């Protein structure tokens, strides 16, 4: 592990710890309104000031980070499992199954990711409780984000199907199901891990895009996307630089993931 990767690990660990400890660091919570201090600048009471509804921005950043950082991996897990199921199985079975799976994958890949995501999310219910909006947003990311990983896994599984040890196992009369779960799946693990880690920053950024467009997590629950929506009403960067803290945090976290993933990407390629 290089020095940069170690630094990225430390940053991610610190941000994760901070977000997990949000209940202790900001006990008032993300929804409490300080009506006497709306849109206030940073102070001793509110380290990052308050938003236009008088909610403490520091608390909202901590809770928003927790939601984005915990649910992006959950969505990545869902998409990786779907990719393993569709791509891995299709590659292993080969023939018509592989062709069908790749046709579906090509169909999804022919639509730009942002177009597909925004369209699909806009078609989902928008007037729902904050908790359901969180679930819908991240479920959608997981359900739509499997295609690239499925393609990689299909190719890997197809190459495993033709390998000597699989042919020997087939010749020895090993049942197809056992062969897949015991011998093929363990060999797909490195690619699965790589695809899982690669998906996390992609989903964090996608959620942020949805949030800014008003299609992400519903108010009052914060996420990086909904926090960045505040930039829409920005008057001047010099006058209110603290409004950029969520963006800076997002860039730092995604950059840390990218630094950590440089090896994983090589493995997945």
């Amino acid at each position, binding site marked *: 592990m290089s020095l940069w990767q170690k630094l990225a690990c430390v940053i991610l660990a610190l941000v994760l710890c901070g977000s997990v400890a949000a209940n202790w660091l900001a006990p008032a919570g993300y929804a409490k309104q300080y009506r006497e201090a709306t849109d206030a600048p940073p102070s001793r009471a509110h380290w990052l000031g308050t938003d236009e509804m008088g909610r403490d921005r520091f608390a909202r950043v901590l809770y928003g980070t927790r939601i984005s950082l915990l649910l992006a991996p959950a969505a990545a897990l869902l998409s990786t499992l779907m990719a393993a199921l569709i791509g891995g199985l299709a590659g292993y079975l080969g023939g018509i199954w592989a062709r069908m799976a790749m046709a579906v994958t090509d169909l999804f890949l*022919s639509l730009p*990711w942002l*177009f597909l995501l925004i*369209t699909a999310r806009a078609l989902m219910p928008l007037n729902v409780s904050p908790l359901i909006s969180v679930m819908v947003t991240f479920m959608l990311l997981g359900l739509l984000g499997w295609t690239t990983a499925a393609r990689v896994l299909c190719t890997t599984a197809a190459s495993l199907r033709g390998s000597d040890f699989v042919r020997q196992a087939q010749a020895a009369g090993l049942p197809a199901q056992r062969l897949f779960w015991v011998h093929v799946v363990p060999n797909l693990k490195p690619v699965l891990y790589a695809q899982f880690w690669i998906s996390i920053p992609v989903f964090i950024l996608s959620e942020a*895009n949805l949030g800014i467009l008003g299609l992400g997590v519903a108010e009052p629950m914060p996420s990086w996307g909904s926090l960045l929506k505040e930039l829409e009403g920005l008057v001047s960067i010099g006058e209110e630089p603290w409004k950029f803290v969520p963006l800076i945090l997002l860039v730092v976290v995604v950059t840390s993931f990218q630094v950590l993933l440089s090896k994983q990407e090589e493995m997945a390629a």
Partner: protein
Amino acid sequence: MRSLRWKIAGHVLALVATVLLGGLLSATLVRLAPGFDTDERELDPHLSAESVQALRDARHQDHNVFRFYFSYMKRAMTGDLGTSLALGQPVRTLLRDRAPLTLRLLAIGLALAWLLTLTLALSAAWLRLSVFDTLTTAASGTFLCIPAAVLALLSVFWNAPGALAIALIVFPHTYRYARNLLVKAYSRPHIITARAKGLGEARILFWHVVPVVTPQLLAVAGVSVSMAVGAAIPVEALCGLAGIGQLAWQAALARDLPLLVNITVLVTLVTLLANSSADVIGHVVRSQEV
């Protein structure tokens, strides 16, 4: 020549099938979306029961996705793309009015992105200075980590054109590939030998590097069109540009089935055409080398 014809025929076939399936997928998504069958006009107290029933009957044929899609295809053959439910205008007129802005935005955005990409990637490969390489990689990495919608917002804030936002969204993706390709090409033994023998940089570039990297760069160029089309939605929606990206955004929010199906077909067509063209041109370049 024969293989090229087969390649083009294969691409055309795949393109038609994917475009048709893309439209069907979009129609199915809209049909299954909650609140699909609601119409605000039904709440108008001035409307009689017969008028409300007439509105419901008008939407009735859209209930069956396959029937809707089949009749849509039949009408599309004659040039009738239907009428937008939300905007009350013919889809054809809407697309015709908004297409020039989006096309201009995409063309300028992509040109800027590729200008920046090739300038920086070629400089990185030529100069082989670790400081320059680190700086450009860090710059592209930073843009890669900023959400597309934030770049759109910043372009509004700084009064920068939307095309610049598209360029900055596409650039980090293309730069990574182009830089790696060019660095790899320049580290080939025959190029190192050519340099050692004093061959001019321009000759090395046009005779030994460009032919090697062109097919792969063309493939990246095809993919970059898809990225730019995707980026056009947040850019147009947030910058208030009345293009097809903004129209797609409005259509999705209003669950406007005819409009959304047409835009999906159009987007799929554009991205597939870009990818297929890149593939066919790459094939021609490779065959000329042989």
